[in-house]
């Protein structure tokens, strides 16, 4: 509670879901609730009203286009920088250009995918560890709620009761 958050650890995702539903019914804003787990439960246990978004397929595609264009240009500019006499034939033919462009597409897609994951996940993050973080390591689901100092005891009792029922 020292961090202005009330933490509760739940053994199962079903228990956590019940508590989250209850929080939603009580009108707690989704931004005030944080759910954490050691496994992906994002389709199962999320704060009521919150939406998950990722730009990954699109940023990867943009990165692929950028990478492909950059590598294609590298080959083309090399040919222009050194116009060797090749009897009208291209200095670098279409097949090698295709191979190099393909690698550019791949490296562009990989790097932008990783960058997008890190950005969307807010990594590297500097948040301090919470008092119940070790429960996540034990595969419990941790729910943290922003709340007033005085409301904690009543809310905690309610959450525990709800989870038990």
């Amino acid at each position, binding site marked *: 509670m020292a961090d202005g958050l009330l933490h509760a650890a739940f053994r199962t995702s079903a228990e956590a879901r019940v508590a989250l539903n209850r929080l939603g019914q009580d009108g707690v804003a989704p931004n005030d609730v944080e759910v954490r787990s050691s496994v*992906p439960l994002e389709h199962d246990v999320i704060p009521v009203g919150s939406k998950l978004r990722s730009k990954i397929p699109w940023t990867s595609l943009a990165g692929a286009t950028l990478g492909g264009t950059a590598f294609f240009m590298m080959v083309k500019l090399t040919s222009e920088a050194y116009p060797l006499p090749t009897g009208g034939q291209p200095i670098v033919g279409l097949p090698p250009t295709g191979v*190099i462009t393909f*690698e550019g597409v791949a490296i562009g897609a990989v790097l932008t995918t990783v960058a997008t994951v890190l950005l969307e996940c807010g990594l590297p993050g500097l948040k301090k560890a919470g008092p119940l973080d070790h429960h996540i*390591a034990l595969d419990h689901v941790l729910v943290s709620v922003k709340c007033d100092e005085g409301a904690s005891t009543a809310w905690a009792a309610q959450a525990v009761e709800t989870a038990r029922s």
Partner: protein
Amino acid sequence: MSGPAASVHEEALLKPLSSFRPKLFVGSLLTGLLVVLLFYAWGYQIANDIGVAGITRPVFWGFYIVNFVFWIGISHAGTLISAILRVTQAEWRRPVTRCAEAITTFALMIGGLFPLIHLGRPWIFWYMVPIPTERGIWPNFRSPLMWDVLAITTYLIGSVMYLLLPMIPDFAIIRDRMMRENPKSLKSLFFRVAALGWRGTPQQWFSLEAGIKTMAVVIIPVAVSVHTIVSWDFAMAIQPMWHSTIFGPYFVVGAIYSGVAVLMLAMYLLRKGLGIQEYLSDKVFNNLGLMFLAFAMLWSYFTFAEHLTVWYGNEHAERMVFDERISGRFSGFFWTMIVVNTIIPFLILPFKWGRKPLGTAIVGFGVLIGMWIERYLIVVGTLSFPRLTYTEGFYSPTWVEVGILVGSVGLFGFLYFTFIQLAPIVSLWEVREGEHIKNRKEPAHQAALHPASEEA
């Protein structure tokens, strides 16, 4: 409903990270000595020039290029197999992916060393990097060797990322455990840094899973392109038994075959050494054994097709290389390769008893040797008999080349032993997720059998 899937078996995975393990120490020490041999031999070559290696006219590609192709082939064990299993949502992949991806990363690093060693003067490697300089040096993009540089760099970057991204949540699990047990230790600090502040929120999981899926899709064609391009290093030259249209798929199949072989061997050793049979179970060995058998069949088919067309075509220069393989100077290598790559796998892997850990490890060890021989036959076998017969020559490796080969095996082992002590060799969160999925399915199945129980 899904309850905690963290099991007591996880302790076996986490022990090497937190406590001293004599087996790992001895392994690291022995392989470390081989690493010393590698760098001593390489240093000796740098100091005394490339003449200390056995490569000479006309065999200008010897052990170093054989090793290069061999290690790049092995790198197909991990990322490619892991990506295919992820894309096809094979549930049994979960305990396998991490140890396979680590093989890829380390094998690629070692494979990438060999062109540097082969250069003789490794400090001029930057000539291949596409940077304009005051001397106007640009790489020759028409050369398949240059395509190799780009393809391997792309695959290495992709594989490292593909290995590291799914490790972040595992580092966070270990961080959270250590923060309670031993918060001030050096290892605790390492895991705090390595976890990058991962919290495990739904948004983080959503983005991470989207990223891993996208990378799996991207990495499959990259992996295929890498060994295809390696094959083109040979196939683009008009050398006997190199200039073949099936060299691309032949190399890719051979690469995956040798990759699965090293994976089977590594899994067997991990299972024995760490006692993680709950993860690397007989079922996993059986499934990978079936995949191993499929690649044994494919490789054998390609080898037969490749040799049949050369024999039938009866072109003089090609027949010369072919005859030396079948009944000449290289026949010992060739028939050993056939025994370990085709006959032994076909005698063991079709049977369920053969797809147990020991059986697959024995076959894997044999295939590793066989696939190295295959590359030796391709590189040295052909170069010993070029089209102009007056340039025929013989190649025999020196202690420097043998030392570097043995040392590279040591380097691989050393990197792997170090990795086991820094990260769980089985992905904790992926295995837990599998348990959650299983637990979720089971009650649903029961509810379907007893619909009344849902109302109750």
